[in-house]
């Protein structure tokens, strides 16, 4: 059995943990693909496209550095594959990676899977979704509109400044986290509790981990005498 009318026949697995790679290999086989474990160290970032072959998909673990497999993260690798229209899935073990390490690349990651949720059905559905997006462009849930982004909290996570923001046109009751470095350098001094920006956001997303942000720019504060309050 092959997926999507034979569009993918083999899947290359890039994971820094040998046990985890073996487990993925089993699931890939069960899903009907030929699994190929790419050994560590993985190719350098600029050499990743050399892995692309016809009818080949990819699975990247997000954290590749702990096992000395790569100096980059899987999210960046998937984004490189996306730019070259190669179907690639990203797998993460740590929920907190979604907020910072993955968020900045999320626009180029059609499918993010929790490692715990990986099975043959998830892989088949994931590759089908990925291929569809590469072929037809992003679905509306992954298309951006300009939105007001309000800063609810500024803090630090493992040494990196992060923002918790509300996008009220997506969900006024749920904050999502992103790294401060997603904002242009010139805007960063303006960041404080309650500050607002305009950014392009995929407000049709179902869940917070699907949200991505681009093109941050200034938004005016409401004037006390604007006649609306």
């Amino acid at each position, binding site marked *: 059995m092959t997926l999507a009318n034979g569009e993918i026949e083999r899947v290359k697995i890039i994971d820094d943990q040998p046990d985890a790679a073996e487990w993925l290999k089993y699931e890939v086989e069960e899903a009907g693909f030929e699994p190929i474990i790419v050994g560590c160290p993985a190719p350098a970032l600029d050499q990743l496209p050399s892995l692309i072959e016809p009818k080949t998909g990819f699975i990247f673990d997000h954290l590749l550095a702990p096992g000395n497999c790569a100096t980059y993260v899987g999210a960046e690798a998937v984004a490189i594959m996306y730019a070259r229209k190669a179907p690639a899935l990203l797998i993460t073990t740590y929920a907190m990676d979604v907020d910072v390490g993955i968020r900045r690349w999320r626009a180029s990651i059609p499918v993010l899977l929790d490692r715990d949720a990986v099975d043959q059905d998830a892989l088949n559905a994931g590759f089908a979704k990925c291929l569809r997006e590469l072929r037809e462009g992003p679905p509306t849930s992954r298309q951006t509109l*300009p939105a007001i982004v309000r800063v609810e909290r500024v803090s630090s996570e493992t040494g990196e400044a992060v923002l918790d923001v509300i996008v009220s046109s997506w969900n006024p009751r749920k904050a999502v986290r992103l790294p401060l470095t997603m904002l242009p350098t010139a805007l960063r001094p303006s960041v404080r509790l309650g500050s607002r920006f305009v950014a392009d956001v995929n407000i049709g997303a179902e869940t917070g981990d699907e949200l991505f942000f681009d093109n941050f720019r200034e938004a005016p504060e409401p004037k006390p005498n604007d006649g609306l309050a």
Partner: protein
Amino acid sequence: MALPELCVLDIGHGNCSIVHADEGVVIVDVPLGRTLVDFLFSRGITDIDLIIVSHADADHVAGLAPLLLDERFVIRRVLVNADATKDTKVWDDFRSAAELAEQRYKVDVSRDLGSNYAPIKLGATRIEILSPSTALALAGPGGKELDQYGGRRMSSNSLSAVVRIVHADSPRALLASDIDDIALADLERRAAGLAAELLVFPHHGGHVANADNAQFAERLCKAVGATTVVFSIGRGKHRTPRPEIIGAVEAALPNPHIACTQLSARCAAVNPNIERAHRLDAPALGSEKNTTCFGTLIQELATGRISPDRDGHAAFVQANAPSHLCLGGAASAPADDVENEEA
């Protein structure tokens, strides 16, 4: 697509209606999400003459910022009322976007939404703003109605805009936003013409402040005399519509067609994972989640004809909603406590 048309979008819990005519486009309420934008693109609409924000609640205004800030759309005017009680960040987000839209895109943001606003004409279609009256608007949210009428404290819902769409003297639709008993009593005192073939029921069929739910529904339905009553709901949100309201609607009107945009959990505890063959092929939040009951609705304003088909909807309900409230089911529905159904 036969223009002019009224589209009542399935956007989940909230309200969003579009009057689309050859002569122009008027939108009433913009809730969160991108369903409205998808609808506008599907119709090739980029020029919008007027956006009416009925009141300052998130489920009516939260999606306006993306529309105001998107350079692909030309928006000429936004009509809204100030709301001093809405010291909410969502309202301030809208104010921020409005400020930007006024400065950069020269959108006219008017703060004089009320019944004295001249009817908007799009060819033979007339859009009337029936409420809030000047008396209510002058008091504003947080103010009190006149003592002789009870002196009750008004909320944002009391000041909700009520919009009627009339085509060639045929009253086609009444968009009742989130009005409460204060607003309805004010409309009754002024003998405002509420008659319409289609009623978008206020507050999504949730609890009505300052009133008995069933009596409120009965009074409103008798004043409107609609043949179709729409409840714009999101499955799993706020447990709407309430059974006593559906019961009162069916008692007040002869054989009304009750159309919930999404399938209420009250009517089917488990969402049937089947194709909704009767639904329109138009943007709808329930289509994405497969939670449609009636879905997005289109009313041809020249004829009054409503799509999708009533019979197809009824067949879906009979087959898939074991505890359906419409079609006479509300009478046997278990009563429940009044809940806090803000929004």
